[in-house]
């Protein structure tokens, strides 16, 4: 089954100077993310697979679906490690 991800409920996002800032209220940590990373985290307000995120990035940025898939997968993996993203329960 393809994993679905969503943003940790204790994260809060904002954008500044073309980048993103993420606060994790649970760990009280502050993160900077790229504009693309912010777009991914905003999309992860609800459960999504990496494959579902790819069209969003392809539509907004000059990137191939293959590259978007790879970079999104890498970003989500890093966010999982930092607890910014969690694996969504199966419906």
């Amino acid at each position, binding site marked *: 089954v393809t994993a679905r991800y969503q943003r940790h*409920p*204790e994260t*809060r996002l*904002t*954008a*500044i*100077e073309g*980048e993103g*800032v993420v*606060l994790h*209220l649970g760990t*009280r940590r*502050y993160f*900077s993310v790229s504009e693309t990373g912010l777009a991914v985290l905003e999309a992860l307000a609800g459960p999504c697979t990496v494959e579902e995120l790819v069209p969003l990035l392809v539509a907004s940025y000059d990137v191939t679906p293959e590259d978007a898939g790879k970079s999104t997968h890498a970003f989500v993996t890093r966010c999982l490690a930092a607890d910014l993203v969690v694996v969504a329960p199966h419906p």
Partner: protein
Amino acid sequence: MSSTIRLACSAPPLEPRLRAWLDGTRLEPPVSLTLDVRVGDPPPAPDDWHSLFQQPGVAVRSSARGSGVHLSWDVAPAVAELDATTRTARVTLSSVAIARFDECLETFFVAVLIFLLRRAGWHHIHAATAIDPEGRGWLLAGNGHSGKSTTAALFARQGWQVGTDDTAFLAPAYRAVAVVACRARIALRPDGERLLGCSAGMTLDRRHKLGYWPEELGGGFAPRVVPEVILFTAVGNGCTAATPLSARECLAELVRWSAWVMLEPDLAQEHLELMTRLARQAKSYRVTLGHDLFARPTRLRELIA
């Protein structure tokens, strides 16, 4: 001028003292808030509530759902309960706490006020505020030994309007973010007082400092400032120097000095957005304050010109 915060107090002897304290802050939040104070045995925090935050003298607990906070004073039994959605702080004071009422006001009630004002959209920041003679708003953020108070006093000596040297609140304003001052005496350490050439400050017992109203130093009071300049200060050994910061760097610093953004999930986004707007609206600098400032008080304005 008096505070618009409503006071309900079941102990008649305490009411005038609480009213005077609230009025002295000059805080006028845009919505109705209530401080409901009773005397009795303070209720314990529910068993399933966890420690959220500890500031000097005050422990803050929250439920697992994050819906509201429970504050307790470390010095004597006193608690405050605030729901996430209601605009009332329910305070219960023991007789022991009442016996130390002035101390209770300085620590416990200030913390209660900070949480209560969040419910009006005003979010705490540990900072000094001032307005220079050209009408520009300044905000100085930093820790307890970063020169905020001495610089605020120096500004007042130059005829600036000063709001606060310590406790302020970010507040939405028309197309801007304002910073509202909680009025209190500028608290100087004895060496700061000596360097400024001041004397006859009021002894602030608990803080081992000497307090001055900005008016006593030659300045005025600024209840509200729209910052155009933000300084993140530290005290150094050399000459006063300033390094410009990007808006992104400014936001990271603001989060540090407005750390209560991490508390109460229902209010965190609003708080973070105010800081983001403030970081965009002002020029910001990391500043090292040197002793040269006392001989040349205009140095800071020259550096950021």
